[in-house]
């Protein structure tokens, strides 16, 4: 009986200890599964690639040499610079065209369409994301090839046929198609939050609809525009399927070059790793810039 009730003095100490344990244990329990996952499948492989990239000319099954920066210097050779430039061009082009195509759509769904249709319209737009990207690329082959759907239609209305497949325009079309839903989704989220009374206030002060758009709508949704553009840019930069299937030999990109180093004829794992590291670095810098300067309202508030 007497032992069942602990002495009152020790009580606060034990509960304090328990509190301290739970203070460390709870985050550990909550974060451990995903942390372990990231450690095994993201951090470890990245470190491995970093190591490989520092061994010049590392090839599978060959004796490895010492550490050096040879792989990184190789990137700046004249034959590889156009590949990097082309990758940036495709990513930038896909970003611009999906912004130009996506903004009016997102604006229409968020501001002008009847509220009860909004969710349905969004789902209709996101639907292509639920099919495999490989499948979508093959569909574009069927459309763009010389005897494809596009040229059938052009021929039917008396216009000259276009040979787009296996050339850069096909890559831009395919990338834009792939990443447009992301652009629309993020822009929609941003435009939907836009206070419509600000548009009225702008008109009230004498702004034409065009002036209101450039002076209020665009600045107010700039964080969303920046985030959407960055996402499309990064996704396009790393995309492999579209340039591989639609781009042909003239559309060599960094991702295809990396693929070739690991699984193609050259099997130069060291060079592939250095290219990968450069790609990861570029993307990281872009994200860091977005976090620092993207949401200026949030920054000024704090």
């Amino acid at each position: 009986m007497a032992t069942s009730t602990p002495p009152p003095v020790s009580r606060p100490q034990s509960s304090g200890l328990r509190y301290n344990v739970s203070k460390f244990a709870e985050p550990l329990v909550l974060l451990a599964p995903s942390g372990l996952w990231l450690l095994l499948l993201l951090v470890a492989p990245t470190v491995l690639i970093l190591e490989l990239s520092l061994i010049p000319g590392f090839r599978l099954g060959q004796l490895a040499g010492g550490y050096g920066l040879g792989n990184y210097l190789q990137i700046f050779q004249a034959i590889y610079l156009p590949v990097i430039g082309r990758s940036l061009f495709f990513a930038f082009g896909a970003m611009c065209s999906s912004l130009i195509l996506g903004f009016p759509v997102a604006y229409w769904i968020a501001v002008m369409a009847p509220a009860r249709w909004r969710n349905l319209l969004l789902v209709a737009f996101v639907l292509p994301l639920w099919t495999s990207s490989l499948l979508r690329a093959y569909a574009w082959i069927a459309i763009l090839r010389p005897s494809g759907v596009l040229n059938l239609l052009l021929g039917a209305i008396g216009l000259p046929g276009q040979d787009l497949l296996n050339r850069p325009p096909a890559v831009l079309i395919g990338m834009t198609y792939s990443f447009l839903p992301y652009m629309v989704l993020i822009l929609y989220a941003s435009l939907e939050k836009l206070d419509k009374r600000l548009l009225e206030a702008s008109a009230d002060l004498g702004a034409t609809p065009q002036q209101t758009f450039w002076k209020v709508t665009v600045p107010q949704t700039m964080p969303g525009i920046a985030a959407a553009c960055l996402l499309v840019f990064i996704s396009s930069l790393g995309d492999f399927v579209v340039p591989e299937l639609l781009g042909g030999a003239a559309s060599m990109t960094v991702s295809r070059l990396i693929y070739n180093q690991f699984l193609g004829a050259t099997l130069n794992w060291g060079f592939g790793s250095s290219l990968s590291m450069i790609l990861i670095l570029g993307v990281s810098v872009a994200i860091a810039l977005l976090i620092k300067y993207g949401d200026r309202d949030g920054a000024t508030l704090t």
Partner: protein
Amino acid sequence: MSQTVMQNRRSEIETQPDVELRKVFKVFNGETAVRGIDLDIRKGEFFSILGPSGCGKTTTLRLIAGFEEPTGGEVLICGQSMNGVPAHQRPVNTVFQSYALFGHLTVWDNVAFGLRLKKCSHADVQQRVSEALTLVKMDSLSRRFPAQLSGGQQQRVALARALINRPPVVLLDEPLGALDLKLRKEMQVELSNLHQKLGVTFVLVTHDQEEALSLSDRIAVMNGGRVEQIGTPSEIYESPLTPFVADFIGDTNLFQGKIDQSYSALLNVVTHKGLKISVCPQDSWNGSHGGDVVVSVRPEKIQLGSQTDGMTHAPKTRDPMNCYEGRLKHIMYLGTHVHYVVELLTGENLTVLQPNRPESRIDLYTPVQVYWSAADCLALTP
């Protein structure tokens, strides 16, 4: 002194209307928000549209601003028909209920927004923005962003932004609704000062009757999409035309009944519960014998005495007095005044407002007498 300034200014108000509404209707998805409104808002006037929420007052303002197009009828500003004229081409500026300041711009740039659209010269913008900010006492915070300002400060910026284009008409959509009581009182005084200084037409939408009474030259009381009465604050308060206006503006006691006897200057009314009330009808009264009538008596016009006093305190007037016995049911202490609820013998409840004097204190549940002059009540058509 300020009284004479007010008088002069009011006499200066021209009779030519600045804003006119002609039989304006507005229907939203089959629901009629505004049902045939006629308004003449005079140049330089402080005009209020007062009504409970959902009465169509904000819709009326939005029809003037151009954010909504009327389903029927016509809006005229400065004599020009505004049908089909978009908001950005109308010579009015609005102070929004939620301020609607541009969060991505500083206070300075918010105020300069309208001027920059008009392609004003840089020097002109500098001068007028700093003038406008000084006018609303916000010149020291011009580099801040709206999110860094308090509600009252945001309100001042919204005012400066609306005034900078020097519009002939300024529309104010419940501009003080979000402020606390003390700040609201301060801003009311400032609004009134600004209006006198600038001499432009102010159209204020509000549900706060005190605000409308204290600020306005004229008030339009709206209910259910219609204008019930237009008049000066004293007209609206002293001679309401409908039971709704009598009830909405200030407190009142309303008795529904029938006209029992009708003389040239006196009506005898019997309420549905059998109370007999003598009423001196206003000049505009045109009800007939046997017709339905609503009698309105303001709580402050009713005298209250304990039964032992009898009517000794009653003022001697030539108008007949209404005198009833009852029981004190509820006392609410308001500081300067005391609010009583008296249950009459016929079962009707009467609110009475008396100045707070120690000698006039009466205990709860004691029998009391209430009396008021026939000239102090109004006969209204239901």
